[in-house]
C-alpha cells in the first residue's frame, strides 16, 4: 500500500506500509534474549529478600553449592567490589546518584532486593539452589507509606541522613496568595495516583558471554538502549569499551523500564566474566513485578485560580513522589518535569511548583512511558472539578483557556517555550469525532432511565525528542552492496516501536529505492554508531534525521557516478525505483546494483553521517476523549468510545503512529481502572502475578478512534515523537469520564486506582 508520487518514485513515508518486522515476529521467528542459547551456557537466579527491611546477619551458601549442577553462589562480598564506575551516558558522570549496590550489602531494603546470585547448569537447578541459600535476617522497621516517609524515624538509607532524596521549589505557593485571594473562582485539591508499572511482555534479561581467550565481552540484552548498556558495562567493569559488544535483536517491550541499567543487570555483568561460560538471566514475571521497578505512586496539592469568565489566572502544584529504595535514575529531574509541564497547553499567566522525592522500603522507581504524566492527570482532573464548581461545561472551560496558534510561541510560567502545536485543533477535532452535543443528549436520556454515562476530556502537550546532551545526536550508515541490496544501520533499541520499518521507509524515499531492496541492521553495537536508543519519544524523529543526513551524502555519490556513467550532467539525473535515469529519457539509466558494482571498492557506495538536533525538544500535543457507563450496583466501568486526536506532525507511517497511541492509551486505561502494584502495611507486595496485577485485555478496551492534525516540527521531515502520549492522556480522560458519569451523586474523584470497589465506596460516601 504505497502512493506513487508525482516524480514517479515510490513514496513510502506517510503510507501505511506493513511493518517489516511483522513477518518475523508473527511467525515465531523473533530472537528474544531467551532464544539465545550458547554452548555450555549457565543460568542465573537471584535470591531475593522476603522482608521489606532487615539486617543481613549471615548468608550460608553451602547447601546450595552442594547441589549437583550448581557452579557458583555469589553474595555482595563477591560481586560488589568489582564495581569500578557506575553512571549512565545519558545522565552524565557529574549528576548526583542514588546508591546502587549490585547485591544487597548488610541490609535489605525492599521485598525482592537481590541478596545472592546462584549460577547453575539450568534455571531449574538455579531455582532449586536459591531455595537452599540460608539467609538470617533481623527485621528492622520499614518505611512503607511514602506519605509518612519524610518524618519517619526509620531511614531507608542511613548514609543519606533523610528519606527525602531531593526537593526543589521554584516559587513558593505563598507568592500567589494575592491572586488566589482575589480570584473569582479557585479550585484546589490533593490528587493521588497509585503505583503501577510498565510490565513488558518480555521481562528484563541478559546473556553475558565473556571470552577469556580474546578478552571480549558480548552481551545479548533485552534493552531499549544497546549502546548505553555497552558503555555502562565497560565503565562498570573497567573494560575498554571496544572490548564490549551488545547485541539486541528483538525486545518484547520496554516502555522505559529497559532504558537504564539496574542492579540485577549489573550483577550479571560482574558475574559473567568470572563463571567461565556464557551466563543467562531472564527475568520471570514474578521478578518483574517484584524488582524491575515501579512507576507513578505520587500525589500533589494542586490549585488553579480563575477570573469570572473562567480564564485561568494562576496554577500551582506541590508534588510529592515515592521513589522506593533504589530509584534509577536520580529522581529530581523527572519529578521537576511534573512541575514545569503542569500548566499544559493552556494560557496560564502565573504559576510555580514545588517537588519532593522520597525513599521508601519498596521497589525502586524506574522510568515509564510519560514519566511525568502526573502533570496532565492532576491538571485535567482539577479542570473538571473546577468546571463543575463553576457550573461551566468542561469542554467550554477548556476551550476558553486552550492556546491558539496565533499565540505561539508561548512561554509557560515555568519556563517551557511551546511552539508548533495545535491544542485547540486537536480538541475540536476530537469533540467533533464524538459529536459532543449528541453525547450530552444521550447522557441526559440515559440518566432519566437510571443509567449513568459520562464523558472525559484531556489535553496535553509533551516534550519529545530531547535535543540536549547525547540525546541530541543520532548516526546512520547506509550501504548499497554490489548485489543491489541496501542496508541501513542505526543504533537500535526498537522494543516494539517499529524503528525497523520507519528507517526502511525513509531510506527508500531518500535514495529513490524500492522498499523491498532495503534492509536494516539495528541493535548491534559492533556495527552501529552510538545513539541513545528508544527513550523520550525520540527514536523515530532522531533516526529520521540520521537517515536524512546519511542518505544526502550517499545520494550525491550516486548522482556523481551515474552522471559520469551516463554522460550527462548531475542535474539531469533522477533517482527512483532503485535506479538512476536521465530525466528527459527515463529509458536511459543504470540500476543501483550496477552503480554499486561500478564503484571502485565494494565500500564505494557506503556513507555514514550523524544528525545533530536543532532544538532542545519537539513539542507534541493531543486530546483524549472517552465515554463510559458506570454500573452503580457493582462499580463496573465500561468504556464505550475512546477517541484520540494527536498532532505528531507528518506521520512516517500511520500504522506505527496509531499503534504507539493505542498501546500507551491502553496502559493509561489500565493504570486507572485495573493495575495496582500494591503493598500491604508491612511492605509485602500483594500483586506479584497476573492473577492480582490486572492488565486490561482486548475485552476491556473499546476500539480506539484516531484523528490526526499535522503541524510540522522544525526537525527533520517535520516529524515529532509519539511514543509516550497515549499513557499521558488516557488517565485523566478516564478519570474525568467516570467522574462525569457519577456527577449526579456529587462524587469527586481525587484518588486512584478506580477499581469497582473504590467506585462503590465513593458512591456510598
Amino acid at each position, binding site marked *: 500500500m504505497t502512493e506513487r508520487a508525482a516524480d514517479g518514485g515510490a513514496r513510502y513515508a506517510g503510507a501505511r506500509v506493513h511493518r517489516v518486522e511483522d513477518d518475523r515476529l508473527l511467525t515465531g521467528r523473533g530472537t528474544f534474549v531467551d532464544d539465545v542459547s550458547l554452548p555450555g551456557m549457565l543460568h542465573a537466579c537471584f535470591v531475593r529478600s522476603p522482608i521489606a527491611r532487615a539486617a543481613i546477619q549471615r548468608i550460608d551458601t553451602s547447601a546450595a553449592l552442594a547441589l549437583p549442577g550448581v557452579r557458583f553462589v555469589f553474595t555482595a562480598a563477591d560481586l560488589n567490589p568489582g564495581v569500578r564506575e557506575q553512571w549512565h551516558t545519558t545522565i552524565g558522570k557529574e549528576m548526583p546518584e542514588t546508591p546502587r549496590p549490585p547485591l544487597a550489602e548488610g541490609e535489605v531494603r525492599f521485598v525482592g532486593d537481590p541478596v545472592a546470585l546462584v549460577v547453575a547448569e539450568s534455571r531449574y537447578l538455579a*531455582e532449586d539452589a536459591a*531455595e537452599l541459600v540460608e539467609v538470617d535476617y533481623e527485621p528492622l522497621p520499614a518505611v512503607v507509606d511514602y506519605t509518612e516517609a519524610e518524618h519517619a524515624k526509620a531511614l531507608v538509607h542511613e548514609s543519606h541522613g533523610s528519606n527525602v532524596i531531593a526537593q526543589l521549589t521554584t516559587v513558593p505557593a505563598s507568592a500567589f496568595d494575592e491572586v488566589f485571594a482575589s480570584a473569582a473562582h479557585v479550585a484546589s485539591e490533593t490528587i493521588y495516583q497509585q503505583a503501577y508499572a510498565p510490565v513488558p511482555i518480555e521481562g528484563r534479561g541478559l546473556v553475558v558471554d565473556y571470552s577469556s581467550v580474546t578478552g571480549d565481552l558480548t552481551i545479548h540484552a533485552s534493552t531499549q538502549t544497546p549502546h548505553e548498556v555497552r558503555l555502562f558495562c565497560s565503565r562498570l567493569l573497567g573494560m575498554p569499551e571496544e572490548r564490549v559488544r551488545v547485541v539486541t535483536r528483538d525486545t518484547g517491550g520496554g516502555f522505559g523500564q529497559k532504558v537504564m541499567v539496574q542492579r540485577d543487570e549489573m550483577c550479571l555483568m560482574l558475574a559473567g566474566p568470572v563463571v567461565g561460560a556464557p551466563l543467562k538471566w531472564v527475568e520471570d514475571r514474578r521478578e518483574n513485578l517484584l524488582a524491575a521497578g515501579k512507576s507513578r505512586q505520587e500525589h500533589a496539592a494542586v490549585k488553579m485560580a480563575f477570573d469570572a469568565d473562567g480564564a485561568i489566572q494562576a496554577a500551582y502544584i506541590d508534588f510529592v513522589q515515592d521513589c522506593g529504595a533504589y530509584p534509577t535514575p536520580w529522581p529530581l529531574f523527572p519529578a521537576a518535569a511534573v512541575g514545569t509541564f503542569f500548566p499544559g497547553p493552556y494560557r496560564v499567566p502565573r504559576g510555580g511548583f514545588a517537588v519532593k522525592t522520597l525513599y521508601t522500603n519498596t521497589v525502586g522507581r524506574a522510568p515509564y512511558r510519560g514519566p511525568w504524566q502526573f502533570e496532565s492527570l492532576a491538571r485535567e482532573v482539577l479542570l473538571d472539578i473546577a468546571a463543575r464548581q463553576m457550573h461551566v461545561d468542561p469542554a467550554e472551560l477548556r476551550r476558553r483557556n486552550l492556546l491558539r496558534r496565533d499565540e505561539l510561541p508561548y512561554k509557560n510560567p515555568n519556563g517551557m517555550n511551546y511552539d508548533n502545536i495545535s491544542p485547540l485543533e486537536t480538541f475540536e477535532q476530537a469533540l467533533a469525532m464524538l459529536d459532543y452535543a449528541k453525547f450530552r443528549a444521550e447522557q441526559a436520556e440515559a440518566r432519566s432511565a437510571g443509567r449513568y454515562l459520562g464523558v472525559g476530556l484531556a489535553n496535553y502537550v509533551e516534550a519529545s525528542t530531547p535535543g540536549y546532551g547525547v540525546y541530541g545526536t543520532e548516526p546512520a550508515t547506509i550501504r548499497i552492496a554490489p548485489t543491489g541490496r541496501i542496508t541501513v544501520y542505526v543504533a537500535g533499541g526498537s522494543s516494539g516501536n517499529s524503528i525497523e520499518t520507519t528507517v526502511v521507509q525513509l531510506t527508500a524515499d531518500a535514495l529513490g529505492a524500492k522498499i523491498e531492496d532495503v534492509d536494516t541492521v539495528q541493535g548491534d553495537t559492533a556495527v552501529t554508531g552510538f545513539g541513545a536508543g528508544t527513550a523520550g519519544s525520540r527514536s523515530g524523529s532522531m533516526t529520521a534525521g540520521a537517515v536524512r543526513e546519511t542518505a544526502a551524502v550517499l545520494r550525491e555519490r550516486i548522482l556523481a557516478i551515474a552522471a559520469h556513467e551516463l554522460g550527462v550532467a548531475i542535474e539531469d539525473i533522477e533517482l527512483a525505483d532503485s535506479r538512476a535515469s536521465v530525466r528527459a529519457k527515463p529509458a536511459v539509466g543504470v540500476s543501483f546494483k550496477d552503480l554499486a558494482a561500478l564503484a571502485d571498492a565494494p565500500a564505494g557506495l557506503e556513507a555514514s553521517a550523524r544528525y545533530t538536533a536543532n532544538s532542545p525538544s519537539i513539542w507534541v500535543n493531543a486530546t483524549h476523549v472517552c465515554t463510559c457507563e458506570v454500573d452503580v450496583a*457493582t462499580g*463496573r466501568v465500561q468504556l464505550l468510545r475512546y477517541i484520540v486526536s494527536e498532532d505528531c506532525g507528518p506521520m512516517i507511517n500511520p500504522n506505527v503512529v496509531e499503534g504507539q497511541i493505542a498501546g500507551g492509551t491502553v496502559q493509561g486505561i489500565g493504570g486507572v481502572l485495573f493495575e495496582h502494584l500494591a503493598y500491604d502495611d508491612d511492605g509485602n507486595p500483594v500483586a506479584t502475578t497476573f492473577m492480582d496485577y490486572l492488565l486490561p*485485555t482486548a*475485552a*476491556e478496551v473499546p476500539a480506539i478512534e484516531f484523528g490526526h492534525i499535522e503541524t510540522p516540527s522544525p526537525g527533520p521531515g517535520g516529524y515529532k515523537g509519539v511514543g509516550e502520549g497515549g499513557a499521558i492522556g488516557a488517565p485523566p480522560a478516564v478519570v474525568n469520564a467516570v467522574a462525569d458519569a457519577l456527577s449526579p451523586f456529587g462524587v469527586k474523584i481525587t484518588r486512584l486506582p478506580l477499581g*469497582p470497589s473504590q467506585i462503590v465506596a465513593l458512591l456510598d460516601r
Partner: protein
Amino acid sequence: MKPAPFEYHAPNTVADAANLLAELGDGAKVLSGGQSLVPMLALRLAVFEHLVDIGRIAELSGIERRNGALWIGAGTTQATVEASALVASEVPLLAVATPLIGHFQIRSRGTLGGSIAHADPAAEYPAVALALDATMEVVSPRGRRTIEARDFFAGLWSTSMEPDELLVGVSFPIWGGRSGFAVEEFARRHGDFAIAGAAIGIELDAVDRIRRCTLGLIGLGSTPERARTVEAELAGRPVTDVEPDEVGRLVMAALPSVPSDLHGSAAYRKRVGAAMVARAWTTAAAEARHG
C-alpha cells in the same frame, strides 16, 4: 518460576492410577488439565515428588445419562462440556456456567473433575455442583464410593476426598418441569475468577408457585455456598410476588463469612453478590415462566 523436581507418571487406567496414588502416598498429586496445579508448582506454592497425569485415561472422559442423572467423567474438558448438546438440554445450569470459566484456551485443557477437585470457592463448577446436589464418584484401592456435594467441599481448596482417592465422575441431577437457570457473576475482567456470583435454578408449578429453587453462591465464602434457608423460605411462594432484590438481600444476610482481598472488601463482595443474585433470579424466573 520453574517447578521443583518431580517424577512424572502417566497411567492408562483408573485402577493403575488409584494404585499409584496409594503406593506413592502424600508426595503424589493428580495432574489433570494442569490449569490450576501447574501455576502453583511453577510458583513453588506447591511441591510434589510425583505427578500422576490422568490425561491418558479414556474411562475418565465422557458425558452420558446414568440412572436418571447426567454423568460427566472427571477428565472431560470444560470445552467439551461447553460444546455438549446433552449438557445444554439436561443440565442447563452447567451449560451457562461454563463459558464464564477463564478463557477458551484454559477451558480446552481444564477439566470438570480438576475444577471440582480443586474446590476453589470462586470457581463456577463447585458452586453449580453444590447448587444441583451433584454426586461425586471417587475411586481408591479400597474401592469406589460416592460423596454428596454438600459433604464434599470441606474448606478453601480442600475436599473430603482422601489423598489417594481419584475423582472419576460427577453425576448431575436432571431437573424437569417448568424450570429456569441462570449464572450471573462479577469479575474484574473478562475471564477472571468472580469477585461474587450466583448460580440459580427455579422450578415452578403450573400456577407459577415456586416448587423448588436453588441458590448457589460463587466467591462468597471459603467454600462454594448455598443459601438453603432462603430457598426454604421462598418455596411455595408465587414467583411473581418475589422481588429479586429481596432475594439478594436475604441471601447476603444468611451468609456466614465473606472473604476480603485486594479486589474487594467483604462488604463490597456482599453488595455485588446481592446484585448478582437479583440478576440471576430475574433471568431464571423469566425462563421458568416463559420457557
